[in-house]
């Protein structure tokens, strides 16, 4: 029993509900509240790590909390193993900095913005911590409902269209997951992860396959894997850049967590392998990856390009994870971290740069590097990381991914990864070359004055540069992140630890 877990969900949830009340009194109080809560939530995560440091290094870390003291499988269990810890830390760190970025970036309707952002944070932690499949579904829906208004935050035609599309696809994906939950409950009479995991193999093959298909399609729609990727580029590009960073960097990783937790721990990977579904998943994911890269190449809009690159990278992550060797899961989790850092870095930098251009189009980005040369250098470094140049973190993950594919003699996978990075090289260098191009003063009507609206410009640039530095520093010292990632991979590979820890205590 550990009370601390519930605070990870309650603190952001309570902040979200407090903000409107504080907003009535003063703007300043709200800002203080937002900063304070973000720091508090972050420090809870730090506290968990520090107080359990010994167990984390020995990979035996496990925390659990029974809501209302209902012993599983009856009540809802919140639990945190190495995998949850890994994702929870990533969420907390990136959200803290994204909120700091937003303080300088978002000026209007701040109240609503932070309410939604904290609700997303609560939902994400809920998903990562919960041990109940219905609860998981609830949090997934909460995340969808709260992120959809943020997609439409710019209140223009493009944003609204994207949000409607996002809602449509997200709701249908949620529906599939919900049907899956119903099927699980009617077949097994339980909703607890550990309990399901124990008795799932006893089900008839047909039911098992049915349940897995529904969950798989649901998660694939939410992840934007081909052929369900249509909503992603629109949704991730129409919103403000801070939200793009959140959606493309963090939220998709939470869906990756759901994918790992459900298919590796709850249902067990054996059923996928026995029925040959793993090969199908790998093929779909690799198709999605190469298609994402090709579509990113076709794009003329920098944010849509970054969004398509997310599709490509998610495909790689899913494919690598599905290889189901220890090396593969390590590579997948490393790439989860790498892609999170790099995408947040790219989107935050892009958010700054796009304030000085009339549109997101490539042609309008001419000479944008000279607005802030250090920030653009960071953008360039991160882009180099995305194509796997050392010493950026992208190199470490690319190396491990290739190794994982070759380890299972899956040559096609590694060839697609390499081909993808070569295509990525072409689409990133296009923007970098344009960024460094010097502008010749043309007819005056083409260069209308663009007023940048930053509320605190220094905060915005500093956060963007900070993420770029993180990409390099984590890349140089990536061996240090081996320990926790290895622990997380252990947790994925041995579902029995999870089952015993929940039911046996």
């Amino acid at each position, binding site marked *: 029993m550990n009370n601390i877990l519930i605070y990870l969900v309650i603190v952001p949830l309570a902040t979200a509900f407090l903000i409107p009340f504080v907003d009535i009194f003063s703007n300043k109080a709200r800002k203080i509240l937002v900063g304070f809560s973000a720091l508090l939530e972050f420090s809870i995560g730090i506290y968990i790590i520090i107080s359990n440091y010994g167990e984390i290094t020995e990979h035996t870390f496990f925390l659990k909390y029974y809501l209302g003291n209902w012993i599983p499988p009856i009540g809802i269990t919140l639990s945190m193993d190495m995998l949850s810890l890994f994702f929870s830390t990533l969420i907390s760190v990136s959200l803290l900095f994204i909120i700091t970025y937003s303080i300088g970036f978002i000026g209007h309707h701040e109240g609503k913005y932070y309410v939604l952002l904290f609700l997303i944070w609560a939902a994400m932690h809920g998903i990562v911590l919960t041990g109940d499949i219905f609860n998981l579904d609830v949090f997934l829906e909460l995340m969808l409902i709260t992120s959809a208004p943020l997609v439409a935050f710019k209140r223009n035609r493009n944003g609204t269209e994207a949000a409607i599309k996002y809602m*449509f696809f997200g709701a249908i994906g949620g529906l599939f997951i919900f049907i899956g939950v119903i099927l699980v409950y009617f077949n097994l009479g339980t909703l607890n992860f550990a309990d399901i995991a124990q008795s799932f193999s006893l089900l008839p093959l047909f039911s098992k396959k049915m349940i897995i298909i529904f969950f798989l*399609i649901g998660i694939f729609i939410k992840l934007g894997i081909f052929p*369900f990727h249509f909503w992603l580029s629109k949704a991730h590009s129409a919103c403000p850049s801070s939200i793009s960073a959140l959606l493309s960097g963090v939220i998709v990783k939470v869906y990756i967590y759901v994918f790992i937790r459900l298919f590796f721990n709850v249902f067990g990977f054996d059923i996928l392998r026995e029925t040959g579904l793993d090969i199908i998943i790998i093929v779909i994911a690799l198709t999605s990856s190469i*298609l994402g890269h*090709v579509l990113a190449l076709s794009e003329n809009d920098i944010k849509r390009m970054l969004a398509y690159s997310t599709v490509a990278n998610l495909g790689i992550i899913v494919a690598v994870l599905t290889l189901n060797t220890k090396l593969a899961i390590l590579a997948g989790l490393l790439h989860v971290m790498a892609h999170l850092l790099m995408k947040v870095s790219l989107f935050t930098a892009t958010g700054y740069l796009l304030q000085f251009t009339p549109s997101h189009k490539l042609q309008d980005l001419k000479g944008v590097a000279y607005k802030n040369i250090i920030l653009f250098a960071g953008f360039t470094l991160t882009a180099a990381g995305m194509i796997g140049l050392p*010493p950026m973190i992208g190199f470490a993950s690319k190396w491990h991914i290739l*190794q994982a594919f070759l380890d299972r003699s899956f040559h096609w996978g*590694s060839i697609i990864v390499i081909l993808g990075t070569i295509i990525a*090289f072409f689409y990133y260098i296009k923007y970098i070359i344009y960024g460094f191009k010097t502008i010749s003063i043309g007819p005056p009507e083409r260069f209308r004055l663009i007023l940048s609206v930053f509320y605190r410009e220094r905060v915005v640039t500093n956060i963007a540069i900070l993420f770029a530095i993180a990409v390099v520093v984590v890349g140089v010292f990536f061996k240090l992140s081996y320990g926790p990632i290895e622990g997380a991979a252990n947790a994925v590979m041995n579902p029995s630890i999870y089952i015993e820890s929940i039911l046996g205590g």
Partner: protein
Amino acid sequence: MLSLILTSMNFSSLNILMVSTGIIITLVSIISSRDYSYNNTYLFYLCNLIYILGFTMIILTENWIIFIIGWELVTVSTFLLLLWGSNKIARVYLIIQFIGSNFLLYVVLMIMNAGYNTIGPIDNFKLQLLLIIGVGVKSAIIGFHFWLPIVHSRAPAPASAILSGWVVKLGFIVLLKTVTTGNILLFYAGIAMVIYAGIQALLATDYKVLLAFSTISQLGFIAIGIGSGNQYAYWGSVLHIIVHGLAKTSLFLSSGYWVKSMKSRSIYQFKNGWFKDKTNSIITILGLAVLAGFPILAGYNSKHLIKYAAGDGWILKYVFHGLSIITYLYVLRFIKWGIFNLDKKGEKDLDEDRKVIGLNALSALILPIILVLLITLRSNIITGIDYTDYHLLHGFIISLIYILISVTVLKLSNWIYIKEKPVPSMDLLLIRIKNGYRWLNGRPKIERLEVDMENQIYNIAINFAKMVYNFLPKTIQSQLLFIPVVLLLLLLFYI
């Protein structure tokens, strides 16, 4: 990371030798670069520093990861060095090198997967071949050499000195460590490189193009030495890597000064070279003599070892004599056109603007040559062969015969005076491919491209990507239709 780098390093005498040669080459080119008024000098020095770090990692390490990181550092830093010249060439270089390094990464992982966890001898012929192809793009092994004359001839002189003098050798240094027992395909590739690039150098009208092709040709000798698997030929390759690196650096740097003083790159315009710039002339002749392998210079020692140890049977022996003559041919042709294309009238006219070479240039040009001479005296340390074993008298006689044959051939062919050719570029390459295709279809030739090659490839890629994009459905109704379709497919085939 740092501990990983340090623990994986092997400070064997060979590695130390290679690293120090590389550092000397870099320093010399930095000294020479001071004669070119570069802006952002500190950035230039920083790039050089990263480059030194990169190749030090490649040469010293025994760990494949560090090796790949080193390659990428070298690629990126040399790309940045090229940016001080022309952006376009730098871009072409980066694109080709990036594709090459991705292939190398794949090959290295294949090798690691086969159980070779550290850089060392590889017994598997297929893996050897893969590695040779992997470093092929970087080290311009025949078939992947197309970019070298383009980039090396258009780069600024200090950058091309680094590229031609050392970067292309890095691949062969790796091959030295891995292909220890020889590889017959590498051997024949080496012969092909010497012949093909030698003839190209012989027909070149641009001095830097000549030097670039001569680099490929000399790399061929190194490949022969490694590919033969013979112990002495192997040491000959080691020696040739060092000697050629130093000599080519000096030659490329001097080419920069030649171009400056002659205001042209065409060798036919190098009139009265001897009168104009005696220092540069002497250094150039010395450098070329090292390439050709004239006795008492270190080039003779390395070529002697490769020539007499690598070949078996009388046919190969004659082939090797032929290969040596090819080098002599293009070297003598350049000396004739470039330096001794004298004009008695010109001697008087030139009195005022006689070139006095600066201190930077002097030290940059002479240092490598002095080192080569030193290596000549002490090459027994590297190769473990006594100095008397080089049969100097025999070498003199053979070299004189080579020179005699070469001069006769050149004299008969009027010192190969041909129409000036354009400097090779990617566009020219594409025109040649297109004309070949048009010739097959019986259509008239084209003279120039409407869009340059880089943009053309880009357009093809982007048009293909746009085609894929247009192929996918646009309306939300049709996009949503994929969900039931996939569900049905999975239900049909999976359950």
